[in-house]
């Protein structure tokens, strides 16, 4: 089930880093939670179609219309770091 290596892999997938002390506690908590999840195995669900959303709905179509929700400037205001109207991040290509 879950062990230190699996937790490390899941942390990488999640783009999360845990401190060493956090990691031990997280592993312990997740192990207990996953053991509880594992009880679902007791129920036979063979041939049951998974249900992803509870209220039946059909695909919805509408005309693709252009409208102005907000301005690029007001969105750029949200950026933590910005230069000349561009969002700034660490160097990508070295």
């Amino acid at each position, binding site marked *: 089930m879950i062990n230190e290596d*699996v937790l490390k892999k899941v942390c990488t997938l999640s783009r999360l880093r845990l401190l060493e002390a956090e990691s031990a506690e997280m592993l312990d908590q997740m192990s207990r939670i996953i053991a509880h999840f594992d009880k679902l195995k007791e129920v036979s*669900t063979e041939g049951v179609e998974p249900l992803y959303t*509870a*209220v039946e709905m059909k695909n919805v179509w509408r005309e693709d219309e252009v409208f102005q929700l907000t301005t690029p400037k007001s969105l750029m205001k949200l950026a933590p770091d910005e230069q000349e109207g561009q969002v700034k991040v*660490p160097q990508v290509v070295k």
Partner: protein
Amino acid sequence: MNINIDEGSGTSVVSKITEVFSKIEEKDSSINSFISLHKEDALASAAESDKRFKSQEDVRPLEGVSFSIKDMFCVKGHKTTAGSKMLKDFVPPYDATVIKRLKDAGAIILGKANQDEFAMGSTNEMSYFGACKNPWNLKHVAGGSSGGSAASVAARFAKISLGTDTGGSVRQPAHFCGTVGFKPTYGRVSRYGVVSFASSLDQTGFFSLKVEDAFKVAQVVSGKDTFDQTTSSSEKVIYDSNSVDTAQDLKGFKVGLVKEFMDADVDSDVAKAMELSKNALKARGAEIVEVELPLVEHGVPAYYLIATSEAASNLSRYDGVRYGHRADVNTDMSLEEFYTLNRSEGFGPEVKRRILLGNFSLSSGYIEAFYRKACQLRRLMREDYFKAFAKVDAILAPVASTAAFKLNAFEGDPLKKFLNDYFTVTVNLSGLPGLTVPVQKNESGLPVGVQLIANQFEEAKLLKAGLSLEDEFKFYEEAPDV
């Protein structure tokens, strides 16, 4: 369909709202139900309401009614934090659809209500802005995740509050704080502009002191929205005046008691509230019928698998690039390290735990046994509810096994906390509407409520049965000493 505004003693909306803010400023520091206040905008809206009242022209359905808004809803120009460090400075440049509809209806937004971070939690202790306390006893939690919403209504700060209910986050804090808590059918209210947690489960809900008020507001803000393709176009109304007129006559109305819920281990105050509610409904002519939900014990694991999987996916958007928390970065850092640092600093422990659980159950080798299995169970559980609703109009159930927890009751034991959601999560898995109605205080002076559940789009039945219970218990007459 107007809502009676009875806050304060003033005659104008402006004077009433001014009085409300004085009360909040004086009393909320011990409760912590608000993360931010919108005093200037609220008073400007109040002045508009006064104008319309005075001229009697264009008076709107929610004219002058005060609202607190869970900090999950985007309100243009005001911080929308989701209770997280990640979004502590996020100011949306647009209104959520439901906020726009409230504003258009003449509502007054007082400010943003406290909550567990990204709505993940059932105690409001997971807020970056500190726990929200229970107005009935400050040593107890307000519940969660919409704790600030429930507390602000219980403390008589806001007339109505908007919350979100993904697994019980409206119904449970309502039970803990002694308010009405109403979660409509999935898809009734647009999710556009509401911070996403688990998209197939998230639904906006309403807190009020009177049952009718929650349904009236839901009626005003619900309905199709082109910005949210999951909004429903059901013609069945939420607020049905016929339900109101006939609420005291439940002849022919069948109320189900779920065998598995009745066998569950609950505190004596919860059992008492159930007994009193059953008798009240019976006395008004309802027939009590036993129904079964044989898979309900698997509700909590199925719910947490689905909710964490959807959350892991939804929260992958927070990378600190275009908005949200950004760490102090050095230029040598790779982009991957940059994302990781921003996320590790920006998210609190509960959110991290759920992202990790979600990505675990979605990862290759586990997805069949966990996520897919949970979705199969979801279908079977919904079938069980549909079978029950072929026999009954509404189900009467506990909301939680206890009244409000003491602060820090679950430290270090998240599984124990998850298991407390037993009575609420299957309602979300099945897309059903649910309603908490407060019943009475227990021996320690904490409120205890009960839950009514109906079939999809049958909110009118909840209104009817809810009004019957309200008529019996009149809990709105009781106020905490804040």
